[in-house]
């Protein structure tokens, strides 16, 4: 017998808001519909906009779903009202889907794949956090069904959503049980083969969550009224007239009489009540992109205030990456400005990491290097996932830093120093003496046999580079360099060697044709000077 788990996050729009703004936990909060045609962020909450979800604290103060914002504020003056944010709602749904995918390969989320389309956000199914998972045989991975549900609830809580979960044989039974469990944030396990027996003593009202066309609490008024005429309220009224109070009483009816009296919707509920529901799971793949975003209440111009939001986004991204044992190789920052334009930035990360501080530093550096030209209304961050760097220990080599810590430190140092300033030097294409590039650093190259230091050849004297080359005045006497003078140093020539000609890239317009000398001056220094196109330069000092 297959087993299905269901995770329900109650008041999902509020849960998504709490996830985006954790400081609102414990406050009376309501989420209202976004006013159509709002020109800017401050106009998105209008007094007549209906509430689509309220927190338990707001409910205790008499605020109800469906009331207008003005009515709600009349009932509770300290109520916090936020417009339904499709970006944070989609991010919360995507995170929920990833939680399911971390437990089972076959996961279905009610409302389909998360979308940031504002039209999709008004779909009531998208405002629900309901996840179905095929967990057949997976309980052995977690010790028991209870262990599996505990893992599911723990991961859901780790991404800031929580909820309740249940396991049953049938999808509809699991949904009903999870709905009941979600009220207390607990887990319920319906014994295998016991769906009908578990449902029988329950009130007939528990079928509401799986009935077709039930009055959606989050649905706009007209849609809710139309659904109420044809759906669950009509069925519920007929059951009440027949004196059916328990699911078991409804299940005991004859199949043909149920179909005649209640129609197709009733027959479907009858099959659910008898534990015969055969509705298949429609799995959806987890999102490829890991995106977090937020719409700001007002257009933001201060970098510090924006970084407060960005740090929260990075923190949530890191949490999602951690759950999938992934690290971040790069970030794509997208800003929507109040002049209607959109700004996109690529933020490179030197080594895959999940370190929030380093990633936030990198985003800050990207914003500081090229600040947006208008107030910011919405910000979103997409992480480019990558596997954390593995490391193979070696018996014959000294151990280096742990790969994860190395990646974090390199990312932090790169954020401090700026792009293109940390890595290992590698030769670059070309023949110019100063040509090199920086590549990713992953530790010293493996050598088959360690070389003892005394086995090294006597090294040549090292050159300290002067970047960029410094112009120098050269006095030539009898074809020899007699005197050098430059900013900061100068002197009579004691000894000199050269010239050595470097003629590189002669095929290109930026030809490099230089004559090099090594010159020892009376100040004790040995310098490397070159002549290029009748100008003299010093590009290093032997030290």
């Amino acid at each position, binding site marked *: 017998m297959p087993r299905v788990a269901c995770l329900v996050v109650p008041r999902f729009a509020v849960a998504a808001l709490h996830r985006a703004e954790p400081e609102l936990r414990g406050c009376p909060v309501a989420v209202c519909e976004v006013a159509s045609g709002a020109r800017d962020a401050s106009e998105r909450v209008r007094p007549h906009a209906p509430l689509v979800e309220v927190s338990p604290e707001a409910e205790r103060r008499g605020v109800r779903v469906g009331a207008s914002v003005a009515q709600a504020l009349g009932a509770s003056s300290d109520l916090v009202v936020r417009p339904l944010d499709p970006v944070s709602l989609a991010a919360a749904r995507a995170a929920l889907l990833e939680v399911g995918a971390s437990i089972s390969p076959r996961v279905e989320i009610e409302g389909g794949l998360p979308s940031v389309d504002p039209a999709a956000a008004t779909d009531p199914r998208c405002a629900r956090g309901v996840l179905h998972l095929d967990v057949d045989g997976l309980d052995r991975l977690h010790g028991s069904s209870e262990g599996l549900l505990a893992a599911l609830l723990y991961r859901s809580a780790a991404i800031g959503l929580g909820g309740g979960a249940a396991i049953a044989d049938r999808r509809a039974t699991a949904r009903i049980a999870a709905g009941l469990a979600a009220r207390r944030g607990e887990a319920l396990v319906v014994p295998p083969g016991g769906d009908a027996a578990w449902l029988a003593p329950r009130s007939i009202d528990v079928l509401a969550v799986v009935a077709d066309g039930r009055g959606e609490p989050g649905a706009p008024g007209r849609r809710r009224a139309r659904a109420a005429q044809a759906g669950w309220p009509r069925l519920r009224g007929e059951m009440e007239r027949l004196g059916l109070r328990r699911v078991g009483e409804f299940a005991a009816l004859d199949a043909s009489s149920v179909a005649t009296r209640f129609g197709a919707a009733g027959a479907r509920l009858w099959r659910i009540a008898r534990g015969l529901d055969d509705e298949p799971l429609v799995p959806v793949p987890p999102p490829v992109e890991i995106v977090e975003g937020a719409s700001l209440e007002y257009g933001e111009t201060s970098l510090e205030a924006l970084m407060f939001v960005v740090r929260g986004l990075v923190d949530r991204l890191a949490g999602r990456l951690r759950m999938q044992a992934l690290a971040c190789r790069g970030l794509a920052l997208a800003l929507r400005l109040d002049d209607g334009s959109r700004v996109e930035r690529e933020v490179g990360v030197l080594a895959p990491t999940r370190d929030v501080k380093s990633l936030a530093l990198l985003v800050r550096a990207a914003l500081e290097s090229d600040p947006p030209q208008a107030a910011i209304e919405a910000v979103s961050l997409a992480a480019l996932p990558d596997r954390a760097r593995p490391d193979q220990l070696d018996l014959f*080599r000294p151990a280096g830093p742990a790969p994860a810590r190395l990646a974090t*430190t390199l990312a932090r*140092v790169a954020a401090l120093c700026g792009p293109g*300033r940390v890595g290992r030097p590698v030769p670059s294409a070309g023949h110019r003496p100063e040509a090199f590039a920086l590549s990713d650093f992953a530790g010293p190259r493996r050598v088959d046999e360690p070389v003892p230091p005394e086995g090294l050849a006597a090294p040549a004297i090292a050159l300290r580079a002067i970047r*960029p080359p*410094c112009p120098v005045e050269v006095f030539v006497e009898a074809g020899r360099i007699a005197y050098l003078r430059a*900013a900061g140093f100068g002197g009579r020539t004691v000894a000199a060697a050269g010239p050595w000609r470097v003629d590189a890239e002669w095929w290109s317009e930026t030809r490099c044709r230089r004559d090099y000398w090594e010159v020892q001056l009376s*100040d004790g220094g040995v310098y490397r000077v070159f002549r290029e196109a009748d100008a003299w330069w010093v590009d290093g000092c032997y030290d």
Partner: protein
Amino acid sequence: MSVALRLEELLARLPGTVRLGHAPPARVGRDECLPTGLGPLDEALDGGIPRACLSEVRGTGSAGITSLALRVAAGAVARGEWVAWVDAADAFDPVGSLGAGLDPESLLWVRPPDLRTALGAAEQLLVLGGFALVVLDVSPPVATGGPARDGGRAHGPRLSGVRGAHARDAARLVATAQPWTRLARACSRSRTALLALRRDGGASTAASLRLEMRPAEILWDRRGGAPALLRGMRARVLVGRRRGSRRPEREIELHL
């Protein structure tokens, strides 16, 4: 009651700003050193540059401080150990380091834009641990004068943060004891040897070992009437007294 416990009690009574000072390890064993590969110097240092300590190498002009640091780094890389070069002076030459026996592709090269960032980056690497050697080059480049003439732009933008307007601030920062004490403390918590390359300046009290180098002779090869070749140099090294060691100061000569 032990002395340590009593000391903790006394410190607890003092205001919160009072902290225990940095005390580098008193004795360093031979296996706790990074050999330089230069016999006389290793002998004078009881094995080499001490790990878990801050060591300073000072010298002006062509004194050989970079050659010595490259030599230590090359030895460490050849043994498969991890080496980082924090290049506040932007003077590291990857092509030239090949000639010194160092495989530059095994090296982590950090090119901070200014000295303050360089000190921060070095501290991050020390806190990370796992590196055998971190070379911190704060020795300013030779040409510390005014901006290059307009022709200088043909060779790319200026990269070094210790030139021009920043030079005075950098000099002040290098002379300040506090960052060096922080670095020395970070060193002592790991097995990393921190080798600071400096020009002349105020004496740092945080360093466990100080080497002062000055050029003795530049060696040119003029055999057989052929054009001269720069063959190397001889440098005189004043090996300062090391903390925990009874050896007096002594001067040796090195062939680099």
